[in-house]
């Protein structure tokens, strides 16, 4: 009978209402497939709209706090830990997937591809990310992470008639499998060590973060645990694209459909950071090790990302490599958060979230413009395709300038405030060497971001077209209503958040 009691207790901790947003999102994904079966083919255009509106509805529910709050509680036998950070990331992922769906409608219109599965997979991946940000157990973390990764395998090679997209999918599959292997091996090592009954603080439940933390605190110098930690961090570093696990980024970003590249660049990276923040808390007794590893990674990441982006002419590769450098700046914030005493660490974490949010706004602004400028071959997006963009499409030009300016960290845009908050946190933590590297990185980055703006704004001489020659620049898609609203609000939010952070700033920094 005790077994039944155990099961009963476990069932009682299954508060399904705690994951209501994820459940709704999953149901929405299934509902899309039902619609595809039920609706006549002519009316299939409604389905993306349903996906977008449904996500906005779920997001509004989250922002207006309509769902029952489980803040601070552990549910599902400790698989999930609901925190305010998790709430923030839930909204973050929902917002990203909504934008990806809007961009998807534009990009898919240029291809002869099945439409509905794209939106379906995006929604499932987003739900998995939302769970990931609240995970408190390696089992759940791994399952959610694999759901995300498998979803991305399909999304990256979605334009299956384009060899670049297929190549990208294969590369992502191979490197992704390697990183999953590293992560799993790390988890197993930690599981094994923490379950060793001869060690103090050993636990039967060593997949659980709380129990693992207690064990690590009791054994601060265990060699096997140290290897496990480094392996787990390597697996996460693959997601955020930190050196030396950035190798997949340029090719995959270039080959993947532009909306998927945006999803990878923003949501997948942010998912990596949200689990990194959770794990850094778990691994806190090994700070001496993790901080060294992450510091080296951050330096290499900032320098590599910026230097490699300097020579790129393909904008998708460029933004991918610049995204690598952003991962480096964010890593500085993570290091600051783990070095600082707990009363100041909250501010560093707030700085990371602010940076991520500013990065989301700016990246989607830039990717939105890219989706409009791209032609039939989605992998072929060169800097020179942007010439005279500001003249022919002033709206797209302005959005691009604001997005790139924010990524470059130019005041008065949100990206600058993110960098500032990270730098302040780094100063408080005394990370002077990292700051110097970050400054060098920022100055280098001005060159390529400004070069892109230059391509769109400044007039350059173009050879006149000979007879029979066609303009190498692809035809630019006119801006539709949904995309126009999205791009305008992204640009306005980027500018306003640079001037006035208001209650978002208060919420993020007063913790």
């Amino acid at each position, binding site marked *: 009978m005790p077994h039944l009691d155990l099961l009963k207790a476990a069932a009682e901790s299954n508060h399904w209402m705690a994951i209501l947003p994820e459940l709704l999102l999953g149901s929405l994904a299934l509902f899309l497939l039902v619609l595809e079966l039920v609706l006549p083919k002519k009316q299939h255009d409604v389905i993306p709209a349903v996906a977008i509106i449904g996500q906005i509805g779920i997001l509004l529910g989250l922002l207006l706090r309509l769902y029952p709050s489980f803040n601070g509680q552990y549910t599902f036998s400790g698989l999930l830990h609901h925190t305010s950070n998790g709430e923030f990331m839930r909204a973050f992922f929902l917002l990203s997937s909504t934008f990806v769906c809007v961009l998807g409608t534009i990009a898919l219109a240029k291809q002869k591809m099945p439409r509905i599965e794209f939106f379906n997979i995006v929604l499932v991946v987003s739900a998995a990310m939302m769970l990931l940000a609240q995970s408190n157990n390696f089992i759940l973390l791994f399952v959610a992470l694999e759901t995300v990764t498998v979803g991305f395998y399909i999304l990256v090679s979605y334009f299956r008639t384009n060899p670049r997209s297929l190549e990208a999918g294969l590369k992502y599959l191979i490197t992704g499998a390697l990183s999953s292997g590293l992560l799993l091996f790390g988890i197993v090592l930690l599981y094994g060590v923490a379950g060793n009954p001869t060690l103090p603080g050993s636990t039967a439940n060593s997949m659980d973060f709380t129990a693992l933390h207690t064990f690590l605190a009791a054994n601060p110098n265990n060699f096997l645990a140290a290897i496990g930690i480094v392996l787990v961090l390597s697996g996460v570093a693959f997601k955020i694209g930190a050196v030396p696990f950035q190798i997949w980024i340029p090719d995959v970003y270039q080959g993947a459909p532009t909306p998927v590249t945006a999803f990878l660049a923003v949501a997948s990276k942010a998912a990596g950071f949200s689990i990194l923040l959770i794990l850094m808390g778990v691994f806190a007794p090994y700070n001496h090790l993790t901080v060294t590893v992450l510091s080296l990674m951050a330096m290499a990441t900032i320098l590599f990302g910026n230097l490699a982006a300097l020579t790129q002419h393909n904008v998708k590769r460029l933004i991918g490599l610049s995204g690598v450098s952003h991962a480096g700046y964010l890593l500085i914030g993570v290091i600051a958060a783990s070095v600082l005493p707990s009363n100041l660490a909250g*501010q560093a974490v*707030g700085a990371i979230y602010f940076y991520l949010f500013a990065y989301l706004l700016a990246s989607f602004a830039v990717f939105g413009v890219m989706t409009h400028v791209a032609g039939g071959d989605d992998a072929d997006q060169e800097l020179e395709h942007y010439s005279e963009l500001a003249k022919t499409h002033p709206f797209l030009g302005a959005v691009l300038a604001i997005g790139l*300016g924010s990524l470059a960290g*130019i*005041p*008065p845009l949100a990206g*600058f*405030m993110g960098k*500032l*908050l990270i*730098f*302040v946190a780094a*100063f*408080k933590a005394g990370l002077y060497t990292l*700051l110097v590297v970050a*400054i060098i990185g*920022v*100055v280098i980055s*001005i*060159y390529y971001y*400004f*070069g892109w703006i*230059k391509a769109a*704004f*400044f*007039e*350059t001489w173009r050879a006149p077209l000979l007879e029979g020659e066609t303009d190498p620049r692809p035809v630019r898609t006119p801006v539709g209503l949904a995309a126009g609203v999205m791009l305008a609000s992204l640009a306005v939010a980027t500018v306003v958040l640079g*001037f*006035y*952070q*208001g*209650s*978002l*700033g*208060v919420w993020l*920094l*007063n913790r």
Partner: protein
Amino acid sequence: MNSLPVDLLLLSIATPLVAALAISLGMPLRLAKGLAAAAFAVPALIALFLWSRFAGETQHATYAFLSVYNTGLQAVGIHLSLGLNGISLPLFVLAGVVGLAAGLYAIQSNAERLKTYLVLLLVMQGGLMGVFASVDIFFFYFFHELALIPTFIMVGIWGGKDRNYAAMKMTIYLTLGAMLSLIGLIALYHKSGANSFDLIALRAALLEHGLKAAASKYIFGLLMFGFGILVSLWPFHTWAPLGYGAAPSSAAMLHAGVLKKFGLYGLVQIVLPLLPLGVAEWARPLALLAVVGNLLVIGFITIAQRDLKQMVGYSSVMHMGYAFLGIATFSVAGAGGVVLMMVAHGFSVALLFLLSTSIYHRTQTFDMTEMGGLAQKAPVMAAFFVAATMASIGLPGFANFWGELAIFVAAWQFSPLLTALSVTGVVISAIYGLRSAARVFFGPQTEAFAKVEATKPVTDLTCCEKLPALILIAALFFVGFWPRSISTQLNSAIEAIYHPSAAVQAPAATAK
């Protein structure tokens, strides 16, 4: 603490920005021009009004018209805190007046895509007013960047020769300078322990417990080079002549006249009073760089210039040497001289950039060897140019004289040798200044110019060109004949924050 019914400082920043937004949302050109003129006039009038009111205001820690707004970052000690003291007031007026002149000159210029041009200038103007009205050093930096970004774009789109290269070079240099300054300011904030970017709070915290000598030294170094790059300290000056040479005239007027003073102002208002130990450490190298590099080396390079706009650009780099020398003396007279000189130089260099563009419209070239005899055709323009040149050389009767005089007096106690060398700078500026006036306006007309004139008859300054020039020259004369209108307030403010009893005591005995 603000005795005014509305916060005029906030209004002076917001008006140009709101006008810029309104114009960019779309309106007919005539209306846009009128709105822009009004939006340039409002900050200038506010500045003059506040100047007249300043003496009667009650001051809090030398600041009047104080007001504080929360923007959501109070957790890290950032507030939008606006106010003016005796040091920022003259520069605030400078920003308003030069902004008005540059704006009027742009409105009459008929540049291509004029509306976009005006929008960028208005954003720049809003930033400039904010730089000098900010008491919070974060916003001081923030507004500087807000004004800087439009400069790059204006150089890139409306620039002259080599504009792409010039825009890129300016951007990279100035970003580097700005990043160094930002790191220096964050370091100051962090080390002061005030947990606030507010200058008054920072000063109070540092008065209570000074900085360690090592911290003071490296923060001063960061800020000196950061601000130095922004003010074209030799050998980090190469962006300046190139950038000014390529920049459209109104952008050059605002940048060389006002925005570049950001770094010097930061040194006088923030760095010197808060980091006295750092000054002691760095004064000699700074003075040496300023005198040998900026004054002498650049002085000789300026003499060699044939291109009028490049010459004005180099001369503005050269005159920054006086300012750095004044800062290195670390004295009330030196710092006061620097502020006076900044104001005077702002007016005179803006006037020179304005006139060089007007000359270009008549001669179709900036090459001074292809001009000559312009005075007969355009006597009013010649008079303005000669006056501006005299002012820039530093002749008595013009504002520049008082600034340079005060700096020389202060520098004599610092180092007689460097003072003697720097006085030769006056001779150098007289050589290139008078020679350029002679080449452009007097002497026989060159053949090249005669050819240009045959296709397009030369006229004197039009009314629309005269108005901004008149504003600037009136300001130069006013300060020149009545320097006390600035110096009384300036002196009391500087004495209040530099005086040993009020300044940050940081010898080893009081350091933590």
